[in-house]
């Protein structure tokens, strides 16, 4: 099933251009406009944590109540998430973590079927 935002081309291009322009302005900000001025130390520290602040929250609902199962918590998906994080922390290797997660997910879904 194609999500509505992707099926509707105006909406899709609004997302692409909106995200593109917003990201470009962040990149251009100091280099292009603000110049050689220091950011307050607290702001610098906060910016350092943006990926860690947004991404875990973004995936948490998809793990806790996945849309694919109609919002039911799914043991295979939960286990795959745990294995991915454990391997990621242990190996510090993104590709290893991802491979472990995908294999666990495939095995779990196969066992459930």
């Amino acid at each position, binding site marked *: 099933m194609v*999500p509505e*935002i*992707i099926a509707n081309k105006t909406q*899709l*291009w*609004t*997302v*692409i*251009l909106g*995200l593109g322009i917003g*990201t*470009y302005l*962040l*990149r*251009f*900000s*100091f*280099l*292009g406009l603000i110049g*050689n001025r*220091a*950011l307050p130390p607290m702001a*610098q*520290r*906060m*910016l*350092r*944590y*943006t990926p*860690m*602040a*947004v*991404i*875990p*929250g*973004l*995936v*948490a*609902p*998809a793990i806790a109540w*996945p*849309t*694919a199962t109609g919002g039911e918590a799914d043991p295979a*998906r939960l286990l795959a*998430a745990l294995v991915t*994080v*454990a*391997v*990621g*922390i242990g190996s*510090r*290797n*993104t*590709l290893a*973590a*991802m491979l472990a*997660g*995908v294999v666990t*997910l495939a095995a779990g*879904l196969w066992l459930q079927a």
Partner: protein
Amino acid sequence: MHPDTPADPSFASTGAIFRRGLLASLPFTVMILPFGALFGVLATAQGMSVAEAMAFSIVVIAGASQFAALQLMQEGAPIALIILTATAVNLRMAMYSVALTPHLGQAKLWQRALIAYFLVDQSYVLGAAEYARQPLWGLSEKLAWYFGVISPVCGLWYVATWAGATFGRALPAGLPLDFIVPVSFLAMVSPLLRTWAHRAAAAVSVGGTLALWWMPYSSGLLVAALAAMIVGALVEIHEEKRRGA
């Protein structure tokens, strides 16, 4: 270049520096290829055309935020929230912009416009590190290094997206593609959970988003993210004090 002379800047030509930058960025392409291809596969699996998937990678050119946008589109979030949240993933780019300004801020405006477009994690990491090591470099050497680094990184991002979008249709139907994005994200962030500040930020992000799920249009995520950034920064300050004491 002689292998055991650590590139003396007074002797290296900009061409040699460009090629050295190219080589230095090659290890990073190990990550670029699979994630670019994965973005192409997932974008077309969700109904985008090859051209639309490519537009994403060319206009936005920031992997994590592209995956974030995909995830939120799949969940049917409102457009404004998709743009805000996915852009928030890229707030760190402003920090990169600050960090590179002392080195590249004197370049011509069109050059800075181009530098900004190619400002990604890899160009910041490799740029900042090498500029610190080469205090004698002038602007032209720094520019040569920068464009050497970004050529394979960004070029392969486009190529990998195209390949994934074009050949992804060959994948068998019924794959649990809905969960590939969460697994990729977890694989990206879990190696970063080295410090207590990162762990605290991640915990607040997860706990906050789940607790605030009742807020309209999943806007709780943005509130939780802001709280997580503050907590990460505060824990970092606390850690520094403890280590300093």
